């Protein structure tokens, strides 16, 4: 003990009022980092002066696995990336391989794919809204959101038997024909859904506390958003009208009319508004699509054994969280030579440090929530 004692004078400065810089770990085991994200925060009091995202706690080597599976075998694996939007993941992968094969799914298949993917977008946004509101302290919207999401999952269950990791599509089209009540179920869900969105908005949008917690928080200007290669609602909230469904239409999106909602300020509130509006737009797409699902086959002409010619392809879709891209290199065998996935969550997360600097600890959860990340997709 004695040698540890130091003369008083040398430590006089330690009694001066002032704050040390604290390093606070948020995550990997934290209630609101949406999985196992670890954020190392450098704090001055409660102000964040720097941050570092540590990822990889959920790394499963999805891309590497692809190299040892056939194209067909790999399809279920992509469901596990963004596990709250498995249908979208599957769509991106199937279309990428179809592009590589030079095949195209028949129109009926593409329309059903569009309906299911849009339902999935709504489900993903609902899940985002519930957890985001919960992070900011509003307990109740979560349960309303999950109530509606449940209806969508029931439709998935009826369609393909699975609810979460659906493996709904096959390369070249669909395996399952839409079940008898499919249109009716989708309509029953979609018709009253705009009222539901209004209900969530009535709980949050006009609420002073909600506005105070989200307006001006985590601003990302249009230029920064482009520089960070952000995509999805994150870039649209910054005022950039970028939506792959319009820019490079896939599936059957060119058949339907819908708007791309954009924000102005690129803050958390705008991202919230953009996603709310996207849910309404997705509902409209679904309603348009079920009006007229064309008849015809649901499976295109692809062989039993998929052997794409050597070459490479990049195909991106507008997943609920942003641009989900598949870059597949084929060497002519039954297994891909290399699969590289561009997950929107990971790229959007890059902007986190920019967004959080100068804000408070409480804003960390608001910004993580607004980025709508899923760690399964970030780490792959």
């Amino acid at each position, binding site marked *: 003990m004695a040698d540890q004692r130091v003369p008083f004078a040398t430590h006089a400065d330690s009694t001066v*009022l*002032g*704050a*040390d810089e*604290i*390093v606070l*770990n*948020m*995550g*990997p*085991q*934290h209630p609101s980092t949406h999985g196992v994200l*670890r954020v*190392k925060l450098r704090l*001055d*009091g*409660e*102000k964040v002066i720097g941050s570092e995202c540590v990822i990889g706690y959920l790394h499963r080597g999805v891309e590497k696995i692809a190299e040892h599976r056939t194209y067909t075998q790999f399809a279920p694996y992509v469901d596990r990336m963004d596990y709250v939007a498995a249908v979208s993941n599957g769509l991106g992968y199937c279309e990428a391989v179809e592009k590589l094969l030079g095949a195209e799914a028949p129109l009926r298949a593409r329309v059903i794919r569009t309906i299911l993917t849009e339902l999935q977008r709504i489900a993903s946004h609902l899940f985002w809204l519930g957890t985001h509101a919960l992070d900011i302290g509003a307990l109740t919207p979560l349960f309303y959101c999950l109530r509606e999401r449940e209806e969508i999952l029931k439709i998935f269950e009826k369609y393909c038997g699975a609810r979460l990791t659906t493996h709904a599509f096959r390369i070249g089209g669909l395996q399952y024909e839409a079940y008898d009540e499919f249109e009716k179920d989708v309509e029953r869900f979609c018709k009253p859904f705009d009222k539901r969105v209004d209900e969530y908005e009535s709980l949050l949008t006009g609420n002073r506390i909600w506005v105070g917690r989200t307006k001006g928080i985590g601003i990302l200007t249009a230029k920064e958003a482009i520089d960070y290669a952000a995509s999805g609602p994150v870039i649209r909230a910054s005022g950039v009208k970028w939506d792959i469904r319009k820019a490079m239409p896939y599936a059957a999106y060119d058949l339907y009319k819908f708007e791309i909602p954009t924000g102005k300020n690129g803050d958390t509130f705008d991202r919230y508004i953009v996603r709310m509006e996207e849910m309404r737009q997705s509902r409209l797409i679904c309603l348009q699509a079920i009006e007229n699902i064309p008849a015809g086959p649901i499976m295109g002409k692809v062989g039993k054994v998929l052997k794409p010619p050597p070459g490479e392809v990049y195909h991106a879709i507008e997943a609920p969280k942003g641009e989900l891209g598949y870059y597949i290199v084929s060497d002519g065998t039954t297994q891909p030579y290399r699969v590289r996935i561009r997950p929107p969550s990971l790229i959007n997360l890059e902007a986190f440090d920019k967004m959080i600097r100068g804000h*408070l600890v409480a804003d960390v959860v608001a910004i993580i929530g607004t980025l709508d990340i899923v760690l399964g997709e970030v780490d792959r």
Partner: protein
Amino acid sequence: MPSQYIPILIFAALAAAFPAVTLVLFRFIRPTPVAVGAKLKPYECGVEAEGDTRGRYSVRFYIVAILFVIFDVETTFLFPWAVLFSTRHEGFRLEPVYALASMFVFLGILIIGYVWLYRKGALEWV
């Protein structure tokens, strides 16, 4: 000791004893903690804590505390005044206009200080 306080004293003893006694008594029923290692580490989201947990925190807390003490003193002055304003003990009651005027002067001076704080931004947290 004013006689009304005797039951309060006993109640205080009861209120203090109840949780303590329960805590100690149930030690015999509770499983003995066998926790070692990581279970006894402070929670830091599953990783080792970095830096000193008992480091110094923002000076803001100090400003809040000192302002609190000042406003607390002020409120304490107000309590007897408020009671005298319309007390039922005749002979104690203050003449209303006089009482109000005296408190307006008192609060007025403090409001000057408050406005200064407000302008200075001392009431802002960050």
